[in-house]
């Protein structure tokens, strides 16, 4: 850092108080004397030195504040570029001083809160059941990144029922949204079949070439890259609505069987199936894991049941309609998954 900016150039180290009798009265406006100009120049130089020092202090605070957000570092300008008067330089200096004071206090407060959050993470990790559903993000402890600590039941609804809790640590930021995932480097199965047909009856290679292996690896890497890092969250966030619906469905099933009430059993089955289909659809349409058969089966079964119950159609025709819907849905679902997963027709393990 060039020290010359912080040095006093025109002033003595210890300012000497002017003798009142040697200082003439201020001249009328427009008749500034050399003496007064000189005096103001010295004052301006001293103010500029103070501004330089404060700017450096503010720059250091700016560097140490990252990645905390919402801290205002702005100090209003005076409208320039021009020579500023003593009064204006004083206002710049005072603005900088106030900003440094404000930012220092904010950082101090943030450091206190972050320390408390670190302690909370330690306590959560030691006893997750005492901090149910508590979630602490990296931003809460003043660190960059998207990592978070979340106290959740182990094995979903089972852990919820049995009161088994654990702190799950999630790392990695979600993938950027809005753009299509990258096209696969390797052609899809259908494209390979098509090319094979076009080439004619060529004998398949018994040993894959090194280049082919490399392509396959790259294609696999591209697919993995396109896979979301974690299961997509529901529209209602982290609230365990699906798990609760399954729980209610299971309870209704038990009650229905115990009381021999078929309507209760059907409602219970419907609720449990609804929650399952919701989860499957969420995973499928975000490209996380494919559920072609399950979702197509649900659509086919719903069609068959609706036609059978609400129309006088023959059961065979209802079955045929269900099968047609199943087939059509499966075809559409495979296409939808392929578009969202970067070319994979199915994915069992994310």
């Amino acid at each position, binding site marked *: *850092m*060039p020290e*010359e*900016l912080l040095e006093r*150039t025109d002033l003595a180290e210890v300012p000497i108080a002017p003798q009142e009798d040697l200082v003439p009265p201020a001249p009328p406006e427009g008749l500034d004397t050399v003496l007064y100009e000189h005096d103001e*120049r010295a004052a*301006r130089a001293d103010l*500029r030195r103070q*501004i*330089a020092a404060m*700017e*450096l202090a503010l*720059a*250091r605070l*700016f*560097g140490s504040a*990252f990645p905390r957000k919402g801290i205002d*570092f*702005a*100090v*209003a*300008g*005076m*409208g*320039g*570029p*021009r*020579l*500023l008067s003593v009064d*204006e*330089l004083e206002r*710049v200096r005072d603005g*900088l001083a106030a900003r440094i004071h404000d930012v220092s206090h904010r950082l101090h407060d943030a450091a206190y809160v972050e320390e408390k959050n670190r302690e909370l993470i330690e306590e959560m990790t030691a006893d997750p059941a005492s901090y149910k559903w508590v979630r602490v993000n990296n931003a809460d402890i003043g660190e960059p990144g998207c990592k978070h600590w979340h106290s959740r039941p182990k094995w979903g609804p089972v852990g919820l029922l049995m009161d088994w809790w654990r702190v799950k640590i999630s790392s990695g930021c979600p993938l950027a949204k809005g753009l299509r995932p990258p096209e696969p480097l390797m052609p899809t199965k259908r494209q390979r079949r098509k090319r094979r047909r076009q080439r004619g009856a060529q004998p398949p290679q018994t040993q894959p070439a090194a280049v082919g292996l490399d392509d396959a690896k790259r294609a696999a890497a591209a697919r993995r890259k396109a896979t979301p890092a974690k299961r997509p969250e529901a529209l209602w966030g982290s609230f365990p609505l699906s798990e609760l619906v399954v729980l209610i469905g299971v309870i209704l099933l038990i009650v229905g069987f115990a009381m021999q009430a078929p309507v209760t059993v059907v409602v219970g089955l419907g609720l449990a199936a609804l929650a399952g289909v919701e989860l499957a659809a969420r995973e499928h349409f975000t490209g996380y894991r494919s559920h072609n058969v399950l979702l197509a089966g649900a659509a086919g079964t719903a069609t068959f049941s609706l036609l059978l119950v609400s129309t006088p159609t023959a059961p065979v025709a209802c079955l045929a309609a269900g099968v047609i819907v199943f087939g059509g849905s499966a075809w559409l679902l495979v296409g939808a998954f392929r578009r969202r997963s970067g070319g994979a027709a199915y994915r069992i393990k994310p």
Partner: protein
Amino acid sequence: MTPDLPDQWEVAPEPGWVEPALAGEFPGLSIVSTTLEASTGRSPEALRERLRSLSDRIGGSQAIQLRQQAIPWAYRVFFRHIGLDPDTTRTPIEQLIFERIHDGAFKSRNRVDDALTIAMVEVGVAMRAFDADRVEGRIGLRLSAEGESFEGRVSPLPDGTIVVADEHRPLGILFERTAEGRGVRRGTSRVMLVAIGVRGVPDIALEEALWVAGSALRA
């Protein structure tokens, strides 16, 4: 095999004048220029490649720490001294780094702008370019006179605005707008590169900035 080296170009920096009132208030304020024959237009591939490699070297961490580095800090301080808020009217180097972070890379604009970008990012010095054939006499820094204006500006400049000027008229406001027709345009054959120094920026940095920009322009 010995690679073919480009012809060496030696920068001949010409110090500009600074009005005594300004020099007295801001010791260290200086302006240095050099003029060279150069074509304008789209940047050659070599220059764009250099810009891409420069983009790879600059990231978020450099942007955060930038204002603590000696030369960028000196410009921030000078901005405060002349009444500009460097967070609103960014210093030239901070503006470039901001655009790099915002756009993901230093975007290639044209040969002259790309050369200035490379020099400013490499050295940190504030630079500008003018059409040398439209600059009359030596270049310098002064305060604007009452009612003075320049081409392309409707209202007169506020009295006492610091301007970059030749010996006859203002060429633009310091760190801000250039007068219409005075900057480098299509068809400009002689380019005047200008480096503006403030207290805390060594003279050698100004010379280096001119050399880097000139070399990039001749590439």
